[in-house]
């Protein structure tokens, strides 16, 4: 017996939004952490320089 294919496009669209959003968030979090580390490094290095003086 022939049955019509259901319209499940919505689930597919949301699925691919998930597939794109999660790695994007991961990349953004890595960039953000890298920036914070750079700031911390600069601050600690300047503190250490001041200590030496």
């Amino acid at each position, binding site marked *: 017996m022939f049955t019509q*294919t*259901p*319209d*499940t*496009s919505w*689930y*597919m669209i*949301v*699925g*691919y939004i*998930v*597939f794109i959003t*999660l*790695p994007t968030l*991961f990349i953004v979090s*890595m960039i953000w*952490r*890298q920036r914070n*580390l*750079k700031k*911390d*490094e600069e601050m*600690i*290095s300047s*503190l*250490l320089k001041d*200590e030496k003086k």
Partner: protein
Amino acid sequence: MTTSTPKVLQTLNIVSILMFIISLGLIFFYAPREVVMGEAQRIFYYHVPSAWVSFLAFGVAVVGGIAFLRTGNHKWDRLGLASVEVGIMFALMTLFSGMLWARPSWNTWWTWDPRLTTYAILLLIYFAYLMLRQGIEDPDKRARFGSVYGIVGFISVPITYFSIYLWRTIHPALFGTNSSETKMTMEPAMLQTFIFCNIFGAVLYTTFLWHRFRLENDTAHVEELRMKASNA
């Protein structure tokens, strides 16, 4: 801090982006629509690679853990941590996409099926790994704890993988089942797309792992500087 991005990693970045674009092209324009499930079946092309890549990531954490316990080199522990974090990202992709696949197929977002339950437990185990690690101040203790936890926690991976063969389940199986209800069959175009997406999954994991590992090396460097400053 780490120096400029190595050439191989730069190449991996470009290859990952290209493979991502090609994979989307194959999924939406080459692979045919599945008759029974409709468009939602296309979730499967990323869902399966995400799942096995998460297993691979937790496996790499075991290698890192064993290597750290044998050598005491903190680089291995950093590799384990980086891999667990990337693995969690892939596991979340698997879990959410699985729910979106389940709704039209099983008429429910979630069911306490052995595969789904064991996978959710696995994810919680690795979330706990990240949280418990953060609570340990001493870097040596933290690395030892992370290594042992990473090795013991991996027990959840084979349990999750074999759960569909050990218990009664409604989750489809790709390999090793004769049940017509759960076995999946694919048309050539679907199979080719599926194989490509699996290779893409492995490439993407390698790229993310490498970036996350470099970030962890930088974190260790800044932590060292902080210790120096506090002792000065």
